[in-house]
């Protein structure tokens, strides 16, 4: 039994916002794969819940008229993997989704919950960072949009205002069209394990030149992060083996991993450097570059 004081079912997003306003201590529950674990561990901060598990308006993937891809926050990872839109336009997000948990967890865990828990190891986060994903949030005063890079405030802390619900992620056309990406997860086990390091690369090339380059990590710092210095250094350079080495060298200056029981800082840095090469190489291959 879960130690719940309240469990209020919301039929719509607007009702969820209303319930949150009326119950200031209540938290949202979507797939519950984080919240219910915390309740099992006896954490009382989740003892009042507003339940958005069954809200259909949060479960969709569509392409808008302006060609933006919009993913409802209530989409579970197995549905993201199966989505023709995602498979065709942002396959790296399928890779991220496939790397998360096991089948049962992927059938329950939502992409909204993965980002709102504020955890640095969230497998979908680094890919969404490289896609410049925009979060659509709805609250008492209406809707606002914010880039994912501004959403993370610190470990476990995100910029969710009082009574706000994350409704969707938007990836605009200019952020996926012509881009090729890859997500590489390094963990102690091949399945059912939290990333030791997760690395996402998304890039665009023209005539053998790196026209745009984005690299993001999970677990390389307190929150998921882009490596802006590295990106600046390598954009407009010629694709080559040396460039891969340069990326691996520069990326070390961008990151700040810590030692935990899973892995030491030194080990993580070693993995960070190697994954930068592997993920970039794979993305370049997808872009049709030979070197």
């Amino acid at each position: 039994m879960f130690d719940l004081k309240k469990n209020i079912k919301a039929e719509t997003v607007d009702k969820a916002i209303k319930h949150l306003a009326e119950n200031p201590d209540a938290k949202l529950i979507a797939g519950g794969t984080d919240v219910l674990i915390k309740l099992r561990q006896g954490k009382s901060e989740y003892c009042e819940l507003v339940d958005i598990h069954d809200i259909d308006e949060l479960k969709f993937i569509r392409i808008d008229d302006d060609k933006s891809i919009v993913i409802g926050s209530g989409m579970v990872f197995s549905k993201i993997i199966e989505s023709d839109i995602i498979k065709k336009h942002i396959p790296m997000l399928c890779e991220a989704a496939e790397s998360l948990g096991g089948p049962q967890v992927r059938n329950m865990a939502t992409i909204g919950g993965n980002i709102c828990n504020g955890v640095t190891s969230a497998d979908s986060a680094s890919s969404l960072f490289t896609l410049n994903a925009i979060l659509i949030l709805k609250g008492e005063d209406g809707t606002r949009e914010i880039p994912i890079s501004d959403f993370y405030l610190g470990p476990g802390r995100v910029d969710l205002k009082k009574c706000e619900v994350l409704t969707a992620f938007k990836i605009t056309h200019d952020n996926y069209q012509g881009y090729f990406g890859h997500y590489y997860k390094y963990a102690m086990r091949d399945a059912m394990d939290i990333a030791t390091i997760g690395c996402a690369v998304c890039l665009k090339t023209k005539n053998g030149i790196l026209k745009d380059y984005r690299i993001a990590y999970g677990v390389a710092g307190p929150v998921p992060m882009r490596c802006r210095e590295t990106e600046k250094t390598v954009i407009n350079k010629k694709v080559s083996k040396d460039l891969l080495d340069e990326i691996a060298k520069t990326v070390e200056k961008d990151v700040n991993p810590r030692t935990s029981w899973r892995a030491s800082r030194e080990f993580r840095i070693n993995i960070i450097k190697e994954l930068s090469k592997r993920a970039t190489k794979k993305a370049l291959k997808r872009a049709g570059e030979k070197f």
Partner: protein
Amino acid sequence: MTSHGFREITFSINGKEKKLHIDVRKSLLEVLREQLGLTSVKQGCAVGECGACSVLVDDVLIDSCIFLAVWAHGKKVRTVEGEAKNRKLSKVQQAYVDEGAVQCGFCTPGFIMATTSFVEKHKGEKKTREEIRKDHAGNLCRCTGYQNILKAVEKCINSDLVK
């Protein structure tokens, strides 16, 4: 709508419609075992790691230990108890028996439901061992060493291909 205490839910369990008053704090695992006596559903870890509590909800494989029972309202729930029809084991169950994929049996109901979901989802497709492993990664077995379980799953898939 009550926010706490008890709530009435209706759902289909192994093909039968049921109406239950349930404590909103309970997991689906607890309701299945305690209120319906469906003790094939096992609690191993209670935190989504071992898959011993796996059941199908609207034919989707989930861990019932981290699934609120109230979420089953209006849905179709399947456990191992409902898989044998007319005193005949399901194809998946029979394959586990034939391949000796069962030792202590604690993980078996969860594995059967995982394989059932896998076989139904990939009907008529050829699957590699790697794909079978990946789709059973949410289930742990402390006894068999997995080899015979893999063989059982392969047998189900192959018999589908022959038909």
